[in-house]
């Protein structure tokens, strides 16, 4: 038997422990979840035992029932679509708010930029529940915002609305929590733009508006794509924000999954929902990566 080369030993010593750990606690649980999505629930909730025999009356075989049930009731498709729509609206709102800010930071003198970026990150450093809670206070019925809006509505003879516990509050919460994830990639992209390109465009006859639409904006598309992936994907799986800020009808994929595991305790169905969410996320991530790649080929 030949002696192992020192380089090979180093390689295994360095990459072995993290690989084993992640295989055991990330890959294995993920695969078991895939398996669980094809099984029946256990007699006392949860899941029929994966290994070893079940209790009497438990069905330990494999089934497509969970998936069939998902597609047989439009309610679930509707919740998925609504989640996608909310994620889309939140992402667009983030782009609209983050773009001017990122552009301003990128065009500010170098010595101010770090501070301006830090000011974006700072609120993101406080626990996200605290940030959601802060919005609960701000959007609450007794606060200035709600009273102003309801005052205006009353003047037009309309019934008062509740800002809190509404789809609007959910979107505001999603945007509030994820905004830095849009600002940072956008800023990183915009900051790298060569300012002489704008000079060149102006020199060749482009107005301020054309310089933005024909030079800055197309060059920033990779930043928009990576920012969108960082906002869209977490929003899609979020359950705490709809839980705390939404009304009873604001149920998203995340809430559905959470209820299967901690409420109704139908784990196979919950696993199936998680797999569906994974599929959607992977599809979106693949799309974003391809779009970003194409733009990067054309870009930098």
């Amino acid at each position, binding site marked *: 038997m030949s002696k192992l080369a020192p380089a090979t030993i180093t390689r295994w010593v360095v990459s072995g422990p993290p690989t084993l750990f992640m295989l055991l606690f990330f890959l294995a649980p993920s695969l078991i979840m895939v398996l669980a999505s094809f099984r029946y629930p256990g007699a006392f909730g949860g899941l029929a035992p994966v290994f070893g025999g079940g209790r009497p009356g438990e069905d330990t075989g494999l089934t497509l029932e969970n998936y069939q049930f998902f597609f047989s009731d439009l309610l679930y498709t509707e919740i998925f679509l609504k989640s996608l729509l909310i994620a889309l609206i939140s992402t667009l709102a983030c782009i609209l708010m983050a773009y001017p800010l990122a552009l301003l930071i990128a065009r500010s003198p170098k010595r101010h930029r770090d501070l301006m970026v830090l000011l974006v990150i700072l609120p993101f450093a406080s626990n996200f529940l605290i940030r959601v809670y802060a919005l609960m206070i701000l959007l609450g019925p007794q606060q200035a915002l709600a009273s102003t809006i309801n005052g205006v509505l009353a003047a037009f003879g309309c019934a008062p609305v509740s800002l809190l516990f509404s789809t609007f509050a959910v979107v505001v919460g999603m945007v509030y929590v994820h905004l830095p994830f849009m600002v940072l990639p956008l800023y990183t992209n915009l900051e790298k733009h*060569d300012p*002489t*390109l704008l*000079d*060149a*465009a*102006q*020199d*060749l*006859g*482009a*107005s301020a508006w*054309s310089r933005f639409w*024909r*030079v800055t904006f*197309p*060059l920033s598309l990779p930043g928009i794509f990576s920012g969108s992936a960082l906002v869209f994907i977490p929003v899609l799986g979020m359950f705490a924000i709809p839980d705390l800020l939404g009304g009873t009808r604001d149920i998203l994929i995340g809430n559905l999954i959470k209820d299967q595991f901690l409420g109704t305790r139908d784990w196979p169905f919950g696993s199936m929902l998680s797999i569906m969410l994974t599929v959607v996320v992977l599809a979106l991530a693949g799309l974003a990566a391809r779009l970003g790649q194409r*733009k990067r*080929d*054309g*870009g*930098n």
Partner: protein
Amino acid sequence: MALLEIRNVVRRFASFTAVDGVSLSIEVGEFFTLLGPSGCGKTTLLRMIAGFDAPDEGDLLLDGQSLRGIPPEQRPIHTVFQSYALFPHLTVAENVAFPLRMAKVVPDEIRRRVQEALASVHLLEKQKHLPHELSGGQKQRVALARGLVNRPRLLLLDEPLGALDAKLREDMQMELINLQKTVGVTFIFVTHSQAEALALSHRIAVMNQGRVEQLDEPSRLYGFPRNRFVADFIGKINMLDATVTAVAADRLLLEVAGVGAVSAPLKAGVQSGQTGVFAVRPEQVQLLAEHADAPAAANEVRGRILDFLYIGDVTTYLVQLSDGTRLEALLPNSAPGRAKFFEAGDPVILRWSAEVGVFLHE
């Protein structure tokens, strides 16, 4: 009327004056060069012509109309940037089409003119490529085509050859001259390379510390530098301290340090007793073996070879005179395989005609 008239333009920044009272007039169809070391103000002047900067004093007139307050996008003046500034997300053809699009030219006309412009820089087959797929020379040609396609009154070129390697630079120089001849657009070229300036330009303005030191044709600039700065900046030159001893009808008589009496070409405004330098170019100095049987000439001095530098086509010899003064002389290497005619330590005679050299008192 001049195409572009620069009238007493001054531009100050916080700590220094970048352009300090420059007046120039550039004629239609000219290949005009602003030459000077970095920081001499040539780029600031170019940016003011393009419209990216505005003079603090003075004015710029295009066809007799002041350019004051007209933004860059409305000036019929285009720039070829040092970094080329090609739009990385647009193909070659789209880059060239950009100024036409901005000018709202109809699509058919855009297509036709882009093809024409790309043909003139021999890049038709690259039109679908993106800038990062091109070589340095090709990028350069796209930038030229883009700058010329909308037929500007004036094309500004900011050190456009700086990023190219030596061989390519020479080819591009030829191409630039031909292109300018064909399109007939007035070029203002900015460079710190005197070789480039001499090779390309109709006229050159040598700039230093925000001022124009001399404005002349290339051969006159080289042959008759007006002052020490120009003499030193353009080509190589020997400079020796000198005093005017007499002003004759057809020549100046000088007393040159380390050499003695020297007869030099007459120069207007020079008076007897003035001090300055006598400047003579290395290729104008003949080098002879000490015992060579040659007729004595007007300007002659003995020295010893100190060192030499073989360059290929020529060899430069550094000669030390008896008082320690050093002079350079240049001999062409016409005999193949032979790097030098003299060894270090050889005694030699330096000699130059009374028609060459110049007395500089500024």
